[in-house]
């Protein structure tokens, strides 16, 4: 079952072990990860819900509620929970499962914790690929919980079909909610901990800041809930369902395809650049040393690499 074909077949059969292995392969960028994803990509059938927000906003508790909701409808539910990796040791403490314990032994719920592994956008570099694996294995929705984010970690909106931004009272004044970035990417803004002081104030700040959104841009719905005691959840489910209905399945896959291509192009760009560095400077390290020694600027290196690539293309073209 450790063979590539064994894993691909196992994912198709819904084998938990095979799905778990496939996730590790894509997360580690193993040599066969591209082959696995190539086979699984077209089998994706689920829609994805992103859950983002600052640390302590109650994201995991809300995800736990969402699992219960979709399980009651008979769906299999996938969860990818990203927690930050230490920039120094690379280690990570992945604790999101704690709040999802009530689903721990449900075979129709697949929860996977991921360290961000140096990636800065609130996800890990492999989150999209992991979502592809779970979706191809028949989990729908796949819920993606980001690391606790600040103001600019907007990557989730690019990955998920529906993005929820979870906010709670007491995290900042009205100026915070007027900032661009995270406030602009949400499809639904969830005001959690509605039982707490300051919820009225938070709601009026958020709503006031949404007034400034220009015509033609999406305006998120604002829903007040308490994930702990269940208040307002029906309203939230309604809001999610209305949005899901506007995203027909085929449309989702094609959107996802274009975005995945963008990501692959970026990764390929890195790979080609490394190769060019090899040719031009005997590798990245030498180039970095030259820059640090003040002999070259990063811009000069970039220009040199592009020129090298152009010469190579011209050469090929004349053949």
């Amino acid at each position, binding site marked *: 079952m450790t063979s590539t074909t064994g894993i691909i077949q196992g994912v198709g059969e819904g084998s*938990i*072990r095979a*799905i*778990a*292995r496939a*996730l*590790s392969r894509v*997360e*580690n*960028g*193993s*040599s066969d990860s591209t082959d696995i994803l190539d086979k699984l990509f077209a089998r994706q059938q689920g829609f994805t819900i992103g859950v983002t927000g600052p640390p302590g906003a109650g994201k995991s508790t809300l995800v736990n509620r969402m699992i219960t909701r979709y399980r009651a409808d008979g769906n299999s539910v996938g969860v990818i929970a990203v927690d930050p*990796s*230490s920039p120094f*040791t*690379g*280690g*990570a*403490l*992945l*604790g999101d*499962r*704690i709040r999802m*314990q009530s689903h*721990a*032994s449900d*075979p129709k719920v*697949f*929860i*996977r*914790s991921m*360290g961000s*592994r140096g990636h800065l956008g609130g996800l890990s570099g492999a989150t999209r690929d992991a979502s592809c694996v779970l979706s191809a294995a028949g989990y729908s929705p796949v819920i993606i919980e980001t690391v606790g984010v600040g103001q600019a970690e907007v990557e989730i909106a690019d990955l998920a079909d529906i993005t929820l931004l979870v906010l709670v009272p007491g995290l900042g004044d009205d100026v915070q909610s007027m900032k661009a970035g995270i406030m602009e990417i949400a499809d639904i803004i969830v005001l959690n901990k509605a039982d707490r002081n300051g919820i009225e104030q938070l709601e009026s700040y958020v709503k006031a800041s949404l007034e400034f959104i220009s015509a033609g841009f999406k305006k998120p719905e604002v829903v007040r809930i308490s994930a702990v005691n269940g208040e307002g959840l029906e309203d939230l489910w309604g809001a999610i369902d209305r949005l899901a209905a506007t995203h027909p399945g085929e449309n989702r896959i094609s959107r996802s395809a274009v975005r995945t291509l963008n990501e692959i192009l970026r990764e390929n760009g890195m790979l080609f650049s490394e190769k060019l560095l090899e040719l031009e400077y005997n590798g990245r390290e030498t180039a970095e040393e030259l820059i640090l020694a003040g002999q070259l600027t990063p811009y000069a290196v970039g220009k040199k690499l592009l020129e090298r690539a152009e010469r190579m293309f011209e050469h090929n073209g004349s053949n």
Partner: protein
Amino acid sequence: MDRKIRVLIGKPGLDGHDRGAKYIARALRDAGMEVVYTGIRQTPEAIADAAIQEDVDFVGISLLSGAHNHLFPEVARLLREKDASDIILFGGGVIPEEDIPGLKEAGYAAIFTPGTPAAEVVEFINLQMEKRQ
């Protein structure tokens, strides 16, 4: 390739004293590992299922209630039953010396008793990883 050692730390049974478990979880994190912590009062079933979904290399179980002779072997049995006997098990907590051989027989590669320095657990994991490769 960006391979990380993945470890699940779980606490089965009814005691809620998770200081030891959290201490080890943190130490392993600081040693560069990815540590899935599942919290207290987990059933052996839940621990085994989580270990498989998370595709961890190690499962470490902590118990202070005295039920280790029942719960530790149960986790090992479930992992075997679910075709995951390649996951390496270790245990910790208040465990009398005379119970250790039995637990090792049940599939535990190591049992750490109170007072064990965290570095010893880190070393154990690194050694086991080397052996495996």
